[in-house]
């Protein structure tokens, strides 16, 4: 792997060190070393099956939901330097701090208000005033407040796809995560909804660290500060987004971003 970044003078929020991941016998991630800068957007790109989503899902231990999955190595989260894929770390503790927005909008069968309040209720937060305030703040944070403030108690399924996805972002924001993971968050959305979500991601990096998997290279170029190119479970190249898209050092990266495969 080649690395050419200005990361050395930034605060590192998380760091993968020789991370390996196995689906049963299948070796899906091969010795990844990778740094995530705080309050920046880091994009993971690569052809289908390259392991970018697998890698993303390591960050909030989604793989623990299925049997026979195994992590090796570490992903350290700073400042407290816990190994979030360590056997001794409770996945729920990790998910309390690192939240995720999925490819397909997945609101719960509840009202808009209750969807956003979900994470708070799960954490045992009671008190209508606190929850009201956090719901409003999160919906504002997800640029959804003005559209839904008069119908907070309507069912979330009545919203459009783009609104549902921003609702899922609001839901993730409500609990003040340190890192927010996005797994191709716009692949199910139309261009207008997509640009809203993209603007939102750029806005959100002021307050938190973002990791995003995307199939759309223009999207990575538009919104990310750093880009990692992955191929068959390995990290091929990592660097400033500008550098990766204008002067990649690896031939594979160049072929991929110029559309010769993928």
């Amino acid at each position, binding site marked *: 792997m080649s690395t050419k970044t200005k990361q050395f003078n930034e605060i590192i929020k998380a760091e993968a060190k020789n991370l390996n991941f196995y689906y049963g016998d299948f070796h899906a991630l091969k010795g990844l070393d990778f740094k995530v800068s705080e309050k920046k957007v880091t994009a993971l790109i690569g052809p289908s099956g390259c392991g970018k989503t697998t890698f993303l899902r390591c960050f909030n231990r989604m793989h623990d*939901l299925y049997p026979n999955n195994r992590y090796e190595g570490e992903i350290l989260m700073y400042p407290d330097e816990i190994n979030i894929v360590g056997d001794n770390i409770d996945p729920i503790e990790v998910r309390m701090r690192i*939240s*995720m927005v999925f490819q397909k909008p997945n609101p*719960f069968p509840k009202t808009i208000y209750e969807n956003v309040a*979900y994470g708070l*209720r799960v954490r045992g937060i009671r008190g209508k005033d606190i929850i009201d305030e956090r719901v409003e703040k999160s919906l504002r944070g997800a640029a959804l407040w003005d559209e839904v403030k008069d119908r907070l108690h309507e069912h979330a399924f009545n919203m459009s796809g783009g609104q549902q996805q921003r609702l899922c972002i609001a839901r993730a924001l409500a*609990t003040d995560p340190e890192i927010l993971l996005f797994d191709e968050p716009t692949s199910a959305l139309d261009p207008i909804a997509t640009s809203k979500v993209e603007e939102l991601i750029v806005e959100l990096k002021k307050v938190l660290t973002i990791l995003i998997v995307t199939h759309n290279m223009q999207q990575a170029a538009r919104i990310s500060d750093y880009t990692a190119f992955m191929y068959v479970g390995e990290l091929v190249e990592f660097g400033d987004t500008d550098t990766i898209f204008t002067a990649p050092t690896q031939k594979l990266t160049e072929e991929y971003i110029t559309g010769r495969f993928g």
Partner: protein
Amino acid sequence: MKKKIFSKRYIIETMIEGSLMLSAVFSIFITLGIIFVLCYESLEFFKEIPIKDFLTGTVWTPLFANPQFGILPLVAGTLLTTAVAVSVALPIGLITAIYLSEYAPHKFRETVKPILELLEAVPTVVYGYFALLFLTPLLQKVFENLSGFNALSPGLIMGIMIVPYVGSVSEDALKAVPMHIREGSYAMGATKLQTAFKVLIPSAFSGIAAAFIMGISRAIGETMIVAIAAGMMPNFTANPMEPIQTLTSYIVQVSLGDLPHGTIEYKTIFAAGIVLFIMTLSFNIIGFWLKKRIREAY
């Protein structure tokens, strides 16, 4: 090409097709026939007994010298045993479903679910005697005022009988909730229990409700257990300690006797039958409608 209408193959094909169609519509005709007889005979009954007295009367003594035809004691008995059964079957069935769908290891689930479904193959007469000869004496040690025949014991046993059904159908509904909904909940830091109760049950609501309603419908229609263990005594009460009679067990009782056709006593069977039929049919329709809605949720 000219069609050879009288070829041997054509005749055989037509005959096969016809007999297949006949077997398909056979059961429908039988059902329609039953409904027709039920309606016809009960209309005869209501010619003699005003429907208002039938539906509001609180004494059911059609076989006495001075007969009274108030259906309410039988309806009360049916609802009472059903309520006892449902209060056992719904919680246990739902907990079973949650355990099997969300907690149990794959292998355990694949082993236990067929066994659970096998429980439905136990003849109800066995359950009936189990209620009468085992559960009632056991309960009498706790509740001293419990009659030898009562609504409680057969109700509980009926509940246990329905658990596999409610559990199995609810489990199917929970399993049908797409994985990305579960992942959404886990990603928020929820535990399994929180995910099950706050997200999965609401998501699978129509399926679980269908399971509940079909379960209730089976409890209403259950005959053997209550006929054996509940006491055959029409009793307008809400006290499960007392002997009662359900619509179904009344029908059994009268059918076993040798009442002459055409008498008013004979026609009571059909009057009770149509009440029972309307009760179970309406629950089944609601259940069917809810079940159809499962797939529309996502």
